[in-house]
């Protein structure tokens, strides 16, 4: 029973980080139909900021958390303004290729600035284990799961209840009509990037807390898996991203639990293929009929 609970927590922890990253993918796709391949690399930037603040400047972990989230948020908005905004009316393929370019730029830029060696992010707290009735739970795992729940609830409220959320939904449904209704489309898109990147920043802190190392290419596989999670759940859907993230996390956990860790990535991508064949819109995806 203990092993079962521990493994469920391991799956939840993995899945939560994927879910946070997948949320960023899904929000950006929902509003401008762009697969933002640079999203995983924003996590990398966040992890390096944590390292800079704590290991290099020796400042407080709370400051490191805040600065990482702020840095990721700014990074997301700047990337949109510099790389994507000028291509708003260009064919979608151009902007997709630009996203891949931005991803490479960030990875190689980090390698140039910080070197290829992994940097170790110091522990955020002295607590590393929580004892729950004889069951030792990893503190980062528990924090990751709790933070993800709070972030998801907050995001849902933001999108469903706030005025900005309403604007986001309007732009995602029909950009032209939203503009005619007096919605500032550009600032709404910027806001979407900011929120998605802030979630990536939270993800970066949780990642650094659990896995302690920042490296230039750490966002690559993480981003790809989160992309799979977003597509599994139905890209553009917020609950879909969370469910997709958890499915990917649990799939990896179960495969590794069975002693088949080598097949972990293969199983995740196989899941993607199956979903694309059986239900191309993903679990929570809607089929939108285009009116001619």
């Amino acid at each position, binding site marked *: 029973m203990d092993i079962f609970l521990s493994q469920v927590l391991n799956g939840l*922890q993995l899945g939560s980080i994927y879910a946070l990253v997948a949320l960023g993918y899904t929000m950006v796709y929902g509003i401008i139909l762009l697969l933002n391949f640079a999203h995983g690399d924003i996590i990398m930037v966040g992890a390096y900021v944590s390292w800079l603040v704590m290991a290099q400047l020796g400042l407080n972990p709370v400051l490191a958390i805040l600065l990482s989230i702020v840095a990721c948020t700014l990074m997301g908005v700047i990337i949109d303004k510099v790389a994507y905004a000028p291509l708003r009316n260009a064919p979608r393929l151009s902007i997709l290729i630009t996203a891949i370019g931005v991803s490479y730029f960030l990875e190689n830029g980090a390698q140039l600035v910080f070197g290829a060696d992994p940097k*170790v992010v110091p522990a955020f707290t002295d607590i590393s284990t929580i004892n729950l009735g004889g069951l030792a739970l*990893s503190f980062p795992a528990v924090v990751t799961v709790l933070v993800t729940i709070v972030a998801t609830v907050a995001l849902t409220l933001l999108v469903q209840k706030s005025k900005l959320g309403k604007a986001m939904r309007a732009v995602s449904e029909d950009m032209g009509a939203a503009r005619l209704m007096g919605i500032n489309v550009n600032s709404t898109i910027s806001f979407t990037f900011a929120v998605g990147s802030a979630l990536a920043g939270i993800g970066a802190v949780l990642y650094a807390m659990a896995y302690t190392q920042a490296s230039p290419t750490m966002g690559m596989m993480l981003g790809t898996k989160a992309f799979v999670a977003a597509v599994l759940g139905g890209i553009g859907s917020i609950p879909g991203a969370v469910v997709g993230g958890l499915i990917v996390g649990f799939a990896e956990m179960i495969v590794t639990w069975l002693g088949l860790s080598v097949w972990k990535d293969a199983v995740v991508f196989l899941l993607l293929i199956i979903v694309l064949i059986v239900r191309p819109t993903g679990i929570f995806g809607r089929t939108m009929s285009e009116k001619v």
Partner: protein
Amino acid sequence: MFENVSRRQFVTGSAAAALALGLVGCGGNNGGDSAGDDAATSIKVGIMGPHSGDNAQYGLACLNGAQLYFDQLNADGGINGKEIETFVYDEKGDATEAVNAYNSLVQNDGVTGIVGDVTTIPSIAVAQASVADNMPCVTPSATAADVVTYGTNTFRACVTDPVQGVVMADFASKQGYKNVATLYKTGDDYNEGVNKAFCEEAESLGITITTQESYSDGDVDFNTQITNILATNPDAILLPNYYNEDGMIVTQARQQGYDKVFLGVDGWSGIYGGSENYADAADLHDCYYCCAFSASNESDVTKQFIADYEAAYDETPTNFCALGYDAAMVLAAGLTAAEEAGLEAGSEDYKQAVIDGIFASTVDGVTGSISYEDNGDPVKSSLIITFAEDGSEVTFDTIEA
């Protein structure tokens, strides 16, 4: 350990490049000046390795170590009253260049023994080329099993990777661990080879291997494997991997409440106190790994070597410097035997006498006592390193071969 070039070591190694490049130049000059010398007054020895390119930090470290030993030997009067004259070749880490360097050493310089090559692939090429000449070669650091299999003329100063697994199994048995689990990276000869050798030796010593878990290159989350391992309640966990991954595994296992022993091999070197601390000092309690050389070793030989090396090169010696030093020492033991027999340098009898001399002698090197039984694989002791409360390395034990 050699197929994986760590960038950390590369950076530290390249810092020494300028210094050692000067040394390569000196070696060349020596060769030029001595062309007219009377052959009978000196013993000609080749030193080859990658002194430029990707593996330069290893080649230069071995070169510095070997050169230091020969310089000391000359200061003490050389062998049989003859000075050791070294000929240094940079093979740039390339097998073809290595064979060219070998041919040049033998045909142009007329050496009677070689310290080299350094990395696995050029070492295999040189081992194959040198069989026909029966030229005594001592590689400081090529770990692949193949290197010493082509003839009886090639020796190595280091132990092979699987031997480290055997050493750690012996250590586990000595410590009284009954149940041991392993967590290793798949798809890499180093990790898999050590793991396999450890499990075989441990089981033959009556230790139960509770589970063998694995992960793939690039993985950062080891929690699921750790949960599996902890469910089998082991006394110790073997991590036959490199320091950055071992650091993450130790951290995550401690987070899951594991407070017992970790065992490792020389890939652990640098986990704490190097360019980065890959695990917290507080998490490194009860961790033990084996290696050939540690600056923490309090033995007189090691202390003397570190002092001499720092005086000569103004930097702290690494494992590879020590192996280069010991490889030179092994070759010198063979040369001494041939010189004492009064044979003519370069003759077939002389070369065979060097080889027989190496087999007959036991060398007390800085990486342990080295002797050879059936082939060029050394029988040598290993150090067991552990960590003090502040994370610094402490020599815990010596495991005799």
